[in-house]
């Protein structure tokens, strides 16, 4: 399926921090900072797709953009196949981009309405040197066919397609450089259920066909599990639990993972009540960020932040009292 890269993982994120400066709150006060990603490390090895789950504002999209060098980390590194992207010269980074592509959430916003499908799909190719016009056209046709569109669609404009077809175009664009890593940020959450299935099927087909490894960002556990071998659960800028999909979802160790699984609506009439009482207030400055929402929180949780530590079954969890 996929060629093995000796030693170095496909993608390695090392202690990545990304902060944003917020508006001043007091006249002469310092500008407060938001730590969107707060010291996250993980590796994606070729052939094992990695999923990140979390609620809005957890920092998962920032992390995804940092992973593909669309954001510069405040500290830490993102390494693709061993080379740090934030340290690479501009030209080198451009070459590296051929190995990684991205699929976006909104199929309406991710395609330039004033460009033909050929230009859209061919854009990553145009950024590479040494590809002839004829070659390019052939590659575009190939990519379109791979996602179930016809080569003649290349002349059309995005508005001539339905939402599902647009997402296919977006996927074709991501495929055209034959990347090894595709970062997909909520690729199906804007689609209707009936279309979601088409796109998910396409993504799994391509995974098998081209040996693509996904870094998938989603709030939907089922979607992540469908695609990914490994899952990380993110909360307030940090990973609270990581591990192989089956194990993690079957027996979550972190109370937050548990809450996520329980809260996801299921196709059955009887339903478990929502777990912890609601609290949207920000976590305490010290201790576990989830402590204020956690049903199992103890005094230690409010005093000391738990580190991500390994469990026996290959999982890691950041909890003093794992379930």
């Amino acid at each position, binding site marked *: 399926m996929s060629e093995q890269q000796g030693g170095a993982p496909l993608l390695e994120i090392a202690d990545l921090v990304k902060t944003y400066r917020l508006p001043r709150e007091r006249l002469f006060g310092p500008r407060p900072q938001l730590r969107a990603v707060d010291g996250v490390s993980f590796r994606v090895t070729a052939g094992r797709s990695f999923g990140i789950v979390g609620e809005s504002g957890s920092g998962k999209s920032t992390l995804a953009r940092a992973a593909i060098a669309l954001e510069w980390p405040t500290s830490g590194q993102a390494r693709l196949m061993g080379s740090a992207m934030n340290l690479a010269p501009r030209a080198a980074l451009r070459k590296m981009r051929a190995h990684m592509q991205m699929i976006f959430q909104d199929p309406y916003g991710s395609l330039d309405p004033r460009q033909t499908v050929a230009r859209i799909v061919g854009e990553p190719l145009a950024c590479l040197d040494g590809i002839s016009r004829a070659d390019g056209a052939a590659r575009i046709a190939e990519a379109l066919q791979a996602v179930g569109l016809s080569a003649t669609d290349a002349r059309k404009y995005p508005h001539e397609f339905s939402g599902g077809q647009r997402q296919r175009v977006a996927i074709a664009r991501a495929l055209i450089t034959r990347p090894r890593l595709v970062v997909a940020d909520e690729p199906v959450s804007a689609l209707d259920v009936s279309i979601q299935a088409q796109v998910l099927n396409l993504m799994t087909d391509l995974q098998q066909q081209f040996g693509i490894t996904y870094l998938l960002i989603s709030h939907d556990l089922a979607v992540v599990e469908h695609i990914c071998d490994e899952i990380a659960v993110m909360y307030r800028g940090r990973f609270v639990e990581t591990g192989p999909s089956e194990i993690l979802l079957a027996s979550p160790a972190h109370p937050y993972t548990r809450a996520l699984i329980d*809260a996801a609506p*299921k*196709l059955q009439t009887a339903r478990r009540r929502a777990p912890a009482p609601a609290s949207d207030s920000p976590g305490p400055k010290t201790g576990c960020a989830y402590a204020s929402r956690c049903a199992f929180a103890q005094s230690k949780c409010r005093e000391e932040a738990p580190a991500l530590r390994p469990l026996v079954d290959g999982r890691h969890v950041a909890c003093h009292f794992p379930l």
Partner: protein
Amino acid sequence: MLLEVAELSVDLPTSGGVRRIVRSASFALDHGQTLGIVGESGSGKTMTALALMGLLPDGATTSGAILFEGRDLLKLNEAQMRDLRGDRVAMIFQEPMTALNPLHSIGRQIAEPLILHRGLSNAAAHAEAVRLLERVGLPDPVRRARAYPHQLSGGQRQRAMIAMALGCAPRLIIADEPTTALDVTVQAQILDLIADLGAQSDMALILVSHDLAVIAQNCERVLVMYGGMAMESGRTDDVLARPAHPYTKALLQARPRVGARRGERLQAIAGAAPSAGAMPKGCPFAGRCPLTIAACGEALPAPVMLGGDHMARCIRIDAAERAA
């Protein structure tokens, strides 16, 4: 019956001509009951909800009947509808950020229907607003009442919307995708809250959602809409257990499920939903449906009763059962 909708159709003028957005929808609901309306975008579910409130866009025309507490809402004039809205029928909208007036404090917005329908004084209405905020589980309600919408989180805003809807103790609450904009954990809490409050005061609830699972877990009865048409309806248990309509079936199978084998192919529905401008004469699902025959495209399928009040509009139910 609290509410009986019979053969409701809604026509909307667009730049491309008049479009039928809702086609002959019928359903009923009694005090304290919960009904889920599920459908994809463009299925007409939101327009059905707005028709009940009498808040369809300008120029929309309706036919059929909406009997609420014995009166046909479609025959009421604007003033009479106004008296009902916010008092007997209340609505919760999808996006609490935009559904709240950004310039008014939360308390003022919650107090508004109380002043309007209950004739409370400003002070009394504000006090009641604080009580309502407490009831929907917002901590520190006094300060929350003074806050502006942008100072609250999404979940808190939706709680405020619920407090607003509850104010006059309506008989019917229509919630249009109340949790779509929220995180899963918050979504569960909000749905619980709506369910609890409805049960406490014997309010009927219509929950509109694109997510069949949300409906399944919260509503006794379900109405599946597609292309403006009610494809299938009945008790949720019945519909989930024995989906009769090919569309309902496809919908149930298309979703990835937690715990399913990875990479397993999903039962995708081919093609895309028809646009309102290109709606076929017959069944809107014709063409995408694997069981399509020529007759499907010719006339609107009649409702078929399947025992109890389980109904499906399909001329190929037999074939569908065989296929399943």
